[in-house]
């Protein structure tokens, strides 16, 4: 595989919503390259039509009865909020001025 570039790491950081510093991008590009070349051996082992396993248990669509039960009250739900206004979570602007 080709080496992972600094620009690729910057793109991944944007996708991950991580405002990384310049020195972090440099360091991660080098480390990621090492890690990816070490783990790339899975491609050699996983030849052919072996089915994937995403989960250890053969469970699908586990439901519980649809019964009402007490939830968190507003005070408990908002207790850890960074900012609260009128019994709601106050968040920074989501839409830009032009939207």
């Amino acid at each position, binding site marked *: 595989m080709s080496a992972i570039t600094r620009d690729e790491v910057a793109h991944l950081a944007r996708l991950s*919503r991580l*405002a990384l510093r310049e020195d972090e991008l440099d360091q991660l590009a080098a480390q*990621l390259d*090492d890690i990816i070349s070490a*783990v790339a051996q899975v491609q050699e082992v996983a030849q052919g039509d072996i*089915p994937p396993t995403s989960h250890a*248990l053969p469970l699908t669509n586990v439901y519980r009865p649809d019964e009402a039960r007490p939830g968190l009250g507003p005070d408990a739900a908002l207790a850890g909020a960074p*900012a609260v206004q009128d019994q709601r979570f106050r968040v920074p602007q989501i839409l830009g001025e032009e939207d």
Partner: protein
Amino acid sequence: MASDDLIRLSAAELGAAIAAGETSSVDATRAYLDRIDAVEPDINAFLHVGRDSALEQARTADRRRADGEDLGPLAGVPIAHKDVFCTKDMPTTAASKILEGWQPPYDATVTARLRDAGLVILGKTNMDEFAMGSSTENSAYGATRNPWDTARVPGGSSGGSSAAVAAFEAPLATGTDTGGSIRQPAAVTGLVGAKPTYGGSSRYGVIAFASSLDTPGPFARTVLDAALLHEAFSGHDPRDSTSVDAPVPGVVEAARRADVQGLRVGVVKEFGGEGYQPGVTQRFQESVELLESLGAKVVEVSCPSFTSALAAYYLIAPSEASSNLARFDAMRYGLRVGDDGTRSAEEVMSLTRAKGFGPEVKRRIILGTYALSSGYYDAYYGSAQQVRTLIKRDFDAAFEHVDVLVSPTTPTTAFPIGERADDPMAMYLADLCTIPTNLAGNAALSVPCGLAPEDGLPVGLQIMAPALADDRTYRAGAAVEAALAERWGGPLLGTSAYAV
């Protein structure tokens, strides 16, 4: 009973002494809180100690006992929880700055069940941030030290829990094991640690790292204590959709039985040789001979895919983590940075995550995002999932011929603080032998099997069993423990620098 006598007791003995009225939960809790005060400056196992709340819970346990309530064998016994378990009366941070000071509005199922059983919460233990690491050096709140040698790591990610129990700051502790985070710290601190069958212990209220692998489990000084704790928090939980709706394996009975007569034991051929410390290899081979002398039938078993488990894990776990940790978005709880009225939610999110997450967490988020990205998904994440199938097949084939598999728990004894901090791949190797069990979802336990002659540090024997056959690991572990205690003239921990 004197303080030192109280904290020297096993959890089973302490529970029995409290039940018999020979001591009280308040006395035992006070003895442990005093011990924490005395050794924490050296060890740094705890992120939070709840002195007042612990004594309050101890008084309640004593009152429930006096009222004749039918309580379990661990009622009144203190415990420390890894800081990844939600506790409604204590901060829960996963050792991350992004959750500094956060107090959950509810308890994890494990926490709640142990409260109901009358256990007293001493505090919350240090860990690698979001359970990512093998040394506890990735904590945002400073490293924890190994009681056997304070210049060395206590393992990780549950290193605060291992150090606390090994330094006699708690008789019991909880941990979580995603790739070895209970078994490896137990091995390098001379403790018993178990990874239950996946789904055997509830993940509800446990801060998620890699959801298809995360498994809460016990730390203790003896196999029986680990079994009592395992049984106390296990069982089906409707709040965790991956919880197994099956009877809890009879781990306590198995720990009491402690015999391996006729047990078929397979030695995993792939785990040994180059890269393994000589003293680890020596103690492991001696344990295999011991099992044979106790009546087990030992054969060598080949599990060829296990050599690819580490690679598969370091694609699967970061992929799941990159998705799980998206919830830390600075909106509803936790840290928020840069919200000055000019920045958008997305900018605040990116600034907060960059400031709140440490280097290893960022590395895994980026790695997971890479492995899941379009164009790379099949090559990396997809291939890793295929390897996971091969590992399951290796286990299935092995368990057609043997009842348990054994290996060293980790290739080396505790390494010096700082030695692997700048080398992620060297750090990842600590989980080489423990990861296959997480990928396949079956049960495993680490039990102390001696000190490596070259450095005098503890070595762990790993015993693996099929899913829902956790009892076999306890049965074999207890047999090894009993035979070695007889050989050594007492428990291994009795020779530690922080022995009481």
